[in-house]
């Protein structure tokens, strides 16, 4: 019993990136075969937010074009494919972390900046990313990855825009990481 426990707790190295890529590709293929859609994450966040706003204030929802379309016909935005997918992601990520001994509370950052600063940047990063993701109708997994898998121009353009912009602005945030 004890030796099994120790086995699980010992940190394992990450999977070889190419093999991880093959695994991810198969998961994506599985999603296409099962439901005709690719993967996605930022959409799930949106549906959660819309549900919360609806729970807090029905009038606000009724008054706005954007929100009301999610409640049309008595639909509940929380009952959405993407929401359940991200729930699965939490579980899947946890299992992977558990069997690889990587479960840990931690703030990752470069030693050159302080923890609060890292967290502020993480927060802002989130704001920018999901805002941009909603604009481009998908994030790296939803638009870029799933789009590329079906060869759409949108997929490739979105991917190039994300990485191009990342490289462009990387210099400004280098202290954050290195």
């Amino acid at each position, binding site marked *: 019993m004890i030796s099994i426990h120790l086995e699980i707790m010992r940190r394992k190295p990450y999977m070889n990136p*190419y*093999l991880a*890529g093959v695994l991810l590709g198969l998961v994506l293929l599985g999603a296409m075969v099962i439901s005709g859609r690719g993967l996605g994450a930022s959409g799930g966040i949106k549906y959660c937010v819309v549900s919360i706003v609806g729970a807090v204030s029905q009038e606000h929802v009724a008054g706005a074009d954007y929100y009301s379309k999610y409640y049309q016909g008595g639909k509940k935005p929380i009952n959405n494919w993407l929401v359940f997918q991200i729930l699965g992601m939490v579980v899947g990520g946890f299992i992977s972390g558990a069997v690889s001994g990587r479960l840990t509370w931690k703030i990752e950052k470069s030693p050159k900046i302080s923890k609060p600063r890292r967290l502020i940047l993480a927060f802002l990063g989130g704001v920018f990313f999901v805002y941009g993701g909603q604009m481009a109708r998908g994030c790296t997994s939803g638009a870029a990855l799933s789009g590329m898998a079906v060869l759409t121009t949108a997929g490739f353009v979105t991917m190039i825009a994300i990485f191009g912009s990342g490289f462009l602005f990387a210099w400004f945030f280098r202290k954050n990481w290195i």
Partner: protein
Amino acid sequence: MFSIRFQVSAILVLLSGLIILLPDARQSSGELNVPGMLEVMNESGQFLTVDQVARMVVYEDTSILLVDVRDTEAYRAVHIPGAINLPVSDILNPDWSGYLDDPVVRPVFYSNGNTMAGEAWMICTQKGYTGSYIMKGGMNEWYREVMESTFEGERITAADNATFEVRYRARKFFNRMNSTPDSLKTAFLEVKRKKEDDLVGGCE
């Protein structure tokens, strides 16, 4: 010892090269390739000539239903008598599926040329509604052959005679029907609208 990178790369390059040899996946309606499509259809007998259609119109053949897939304005201006108007942009509307899926009365699509009618045929065939036709050449051909052609030559054969006779009669019918006032034409349209439920008979 080959690195994993090399192995994975080699396998992917090999596979992607091999799939070039695989048969073409079924063409999606987004990739309509008109000339290639016309070729395929010619072989599989999906075309009716304007003369065949003229004959069916003149003898009021009820085994076909002419479907004008142009927009409503074009239809109202002029259409082949007996045709209903189903713009190709609306073709997947479930209200119309009854017409398109009818095994007894087959739809014959026509437009000004072959493109829109071909599109309509393509969409329906992929949806599983087989047995539809296209009037080859569309309204342009109809005008050229049925409405405006004249026999030029010294002696006419029996076959040609029959053809032209049908054409003349179709001409009269066409001109008469297309000069009816708009209000009558619209009533004609409304009456013909039916839903799929009506067609599926028997023990439900």
